[in-house]
């Protein structure tokens, strides 16, 4: 992608420019957020193609919702909320279709072609542990740990109180620790 003189502009300035009809600003926003969103959705879905599709849908929805963007709003929670809504909707539909675990497993391990074997095994173990968390806790871990978002912002994204997010995060980390405890002892 070609460099843009506004590469240092804030997300909100770019979004405002896009609302005013500047298509190049949309491209810059895509460049900033697509890799973040792809990591986020891949960890939730463990399916490269599906993750890419959800990233694209997120930007498509952002495009459709652009006229709701107001001065003073933060863009990041917007984008994250749209993506998380899409991920939740995907799981809801998947659950409805009663797809078997076997099918999920065949779609897993998207990094197989470029990860060392040991790392791949450890990654699979971690993914397995993350998948055993309830969805509400997994999305909090995703946003808190991997995306490094503050609790207040996570609360805004998932649509609950900050206190509830803290409780979910605490429970999730405790559960993860229990699930991985033998592995962690092996590292020490």
């Amino acid at each position, binding site marked *: 992608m070609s460099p843009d003189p506004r590469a240092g502009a804030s997300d909100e300035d770019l979004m405002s420019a896009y609302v005013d009809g500047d298509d190049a600003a949309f491209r810059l926003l895509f460049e900033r957020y697509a890799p973040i969103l792809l990591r986020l959705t891949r960890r939730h879905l463990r399916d490269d193609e599906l993750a890419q599709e959800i990233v694209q849908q997120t930007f498509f929805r952002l495009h459709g*919702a652009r006229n709701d963007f107001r001065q003073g709003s933060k863009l990041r929670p917007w984008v994250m*909320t*749209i993506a998380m809504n899409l991920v939740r909707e995907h799981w809801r539909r998947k659950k409805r279709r009663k797809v078997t675990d076997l099918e999920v497993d065949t779609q897993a391990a998207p990094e197989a072609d470029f990860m060392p074997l040991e790392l791949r095994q450890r990654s699979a173990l971690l993914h397995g542990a993350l998948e055993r968390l309830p969805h509400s806790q997994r999305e909090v871990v995703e946003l808190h740990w*991997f995306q490094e978002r503050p*609790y207040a912002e996570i609360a805004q994204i998932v649509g609950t109180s900050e206190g509830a997010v803290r409780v979910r995060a605490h429970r999730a980390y405790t559960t993860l*620790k229990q699930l*991985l405890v033998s592995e962690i002892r092996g590292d020490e």
Partner: protein
Amino acid sequence: MTDASDRPDAGLGERLRELDAVAMPDRGQLFEDMFSEVKAQCDKSDRTLAGFLRSRSTAARRMLVLSIFAVLGIAGWFAFPVIDVEGRSVQWTASLVAFCILLVLAMFMVTRPVHLPALPRWQSVSLVAVAVGATIVAAFWPIPAALSAAHDHGGGFMAGACMGVGLLLGVPVYALLRLVDRGNALGNLVAAAAAGVAGNFVLKAHCAIPGTSHELLGHASVALVFVVGLGLVHRWIPSK
């Protein structure tokens, strides 16, 4: 950013960090292709009526829907004979008010901005259930039989006619709500319930045929047909 004291302990943190370590290598071309597809999809959408309406601000979409509801309601009210004054009981008025409230609630749900957390499923399902339930309850408050002396109605045939009219009237409401829906979960079912309620509103206001059986078969069935029919259609042909 996150507070260090909130983070999990070092052992777990180290393991979680490994997931970031296995992140994808640089995929510049992939992102380029993805962006091209998104841009094409956005441009294509902008050329359609649905794309145009969905990209209006939420306030504008809501004003548009409310205005169309109001215009249709007022035009219909005066264009066709409303049932006689004697038939306008408290229950009749309550039914119409309840239908209006349900329509407005459905409109708010369908036009909910996508950058807000999606509503819990139970809220949408509850609205659909209440909407169908309201049409059934309203059927148990029929207009007094005495008012129907002047009407020569042929039982099942008239129920079928009312149902047909109700379904026809509901279609534009359903279409309008789908046109402004940016993709809320269960938006199709909520729109279907709203269409059924809109059909019932018109039938309740104008139909002078008395009897619970007529209202159940000819009026309440409209909401049920919309919800069950469109629910099945969307289950078989899931929207994108």
